[in-house]
């Protein structure tokens, strides 16, 4: 759970980032894409959030959103939830593979199914669908697949 104290501490440390606190059942910290890697580096090195449990893409009517769940194995704490907005037309978010190598396939999966690009990713290609597949099937406006193969 991202506590209010965690947010206040981070907002005080990085006043230029204009962090926002997202209320809800699972409160989160909204961060701009440009500042994501720096904030994540601080969380990993200084606050001990050494485990990036999941990276998820969300399709909203006006935007895409990438959600990061960070846990700490040392403190047995977490998750700290980070949210990043991306534009509807050219969704692009910086990659965090350099911080957590386990983010590699998770970011590839988000790219594969949601079509959100991760800049500076070492190997951004499809992981679940095959190469040559058109579109990103978990987007709301995905038209659906058509098979011409049936047994007769």
């Amino acid at each position, binding site marked *: 759970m991202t506590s209010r104290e965690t947010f206040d501490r981070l907002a005080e440390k990085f006043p230029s980032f204009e962090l926002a606190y997202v209320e809800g059942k699972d409160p989160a910290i909204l961060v701009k894409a440009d500042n994501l890697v720096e904030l994540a580096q601080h969380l990993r090195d200084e606050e001990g959030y050494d485990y990036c449990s999941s990276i998820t893409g969300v399709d909203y009517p006006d935007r895409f959103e990438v959600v990061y769940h960070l846990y700490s194995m040392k403190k047995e704490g977490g998750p700290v939830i980070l949210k990043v907005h991306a534009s509807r037309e050219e969704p692009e978010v910086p990659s965090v593979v350099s911080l957590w190598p386990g983010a590699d396939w998770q970011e590839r999966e988000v790219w594969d199914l949601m079509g959100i690009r991760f800049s500076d990713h070492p190997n951004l290609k499809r992981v*679940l*669908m*095959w*190469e*040559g*597949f*058109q579109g990103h*099937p978990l987007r709301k406006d*995905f038209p*659906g*697949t*058509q*098979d*011409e*193969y*049936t*047994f007769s």
Partner: protein
Amino acid sequence: MTEQDMVPPELRRNVLIAPIDYVYNLGRAASVWPLMFGLACCAFEMIVSVTSRYDLARFGMEFLRASPRQAELMFVAGTVTKKMAPQVVRLYDQMPEPKYVLAMGACAISGGPFKDGYNVVPGADKLLPVDVYVPGCPPRPETLIDGIIKLHKQIRGEHIRTSPWYRKGVEREIPVPEYGPWGLVLPKEEKSE
């Protein structure tokens, strides 16, 4: 000399006369070896059916064969995803004839809850000629055994003369689907014809 006298006495009580279909099919039905091959959670029910509690060896299925060349029954145990579909068809093509397919569980029958998904074949019968459908999600081992008994009944009802397995000049190999931009497509050399 009567007909009775022509048969040597030591054979008189030891010869049975039966149609060849009956004897042949009895032997065939009593040793159907399935392919060791699972796709999703139904595979666990298939595996537990082989263990000592349910004991598929009672039905002549001594063990699941690890090679398609030694198997004659394919349990399609689970969801057939489009990414796995070419491999499923290739395994079926590699099995020697006569061969049978048993669709196990809701996913293999119709796609189940994933029918409308972007990556699921809505039923194994879109790819393979399915003989027996075993419903359930997943089916219990008893249900699977019931399906196997149904398959035995089907095998015992076949005739050598009319069986599709022994006809000449029939192209029975199933074309392996390929990945296309929007889903599965037919192989390229077939499309050009």
